[in-house]
């Protein structure tokens, strides 16, 4: 089995079509495949997501005010 290190210097060994077919039946995701924020928080619960969405909404509002000031 070849790992990352052995293939770093290699050229692609298959066409895009072959790659797409190889990936088609890939395993399902694992529970830790979740969004991670810049400060390291993981969105691993509904509560975490809702808290983050509040921050996103505040940022969006801040950007809208900034856009109004510039125009």
């Amino acid at each position, binding site marked *: 089995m070849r790992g990352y290190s052995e293939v770093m210097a290699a050229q692609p060994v298959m066409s895009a079509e072959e790659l797409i077919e190889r*990936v088609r*039946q890939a395993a399902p995701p694992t529970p830790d495949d979740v969004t991670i924020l810049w400060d390291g928080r993981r969105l691993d619960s509904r509560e*975490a997501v809702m808290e983050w969405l509040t921050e996103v909404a505040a940022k969006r509002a801040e950007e809208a005010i900034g856009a109004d000031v510039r125009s």
Partner: protein
Amino acid sequence: MSDPDGPPHDLGRLIEVLDRHGVEYLMVGGVAAIGYGAERPTEDADCVVRRERANLNRLADALRELNARLRVGGMTDVEAQMLPVQIDGTTLDMASMSTWMTDAGPPLICSPVWRLRTATWCRTRSWPGERWCSGAMGS
């Protein structure tokens, strides 16, 4: 939280939609490694995207076309669809790595980086539908 009954991974559709929306991105991680000959499993499609607002807006357009849902621990895909997530450049800019379920199957993991460095670490080929690299550096 695995969904063995979910749709098959349609990497071709993911790439087609990202390309059509003009997203600047590179496929990395397991998909890229397989393209370069690594025999390893993968369960998602990792990409790095240029962290520039117009590009993130284009990525948001592509994600909306793919009916993207945030992937959340402890929640099913159906439950996650009910979350009031507005997919736009602001949302994408506020996560260092966002994970989305899409109608194309595999979780699409997007990591914004300030710059895509393509000289040494990344090799991309320009024919339509193929865009992968063996590594990516962002700064």
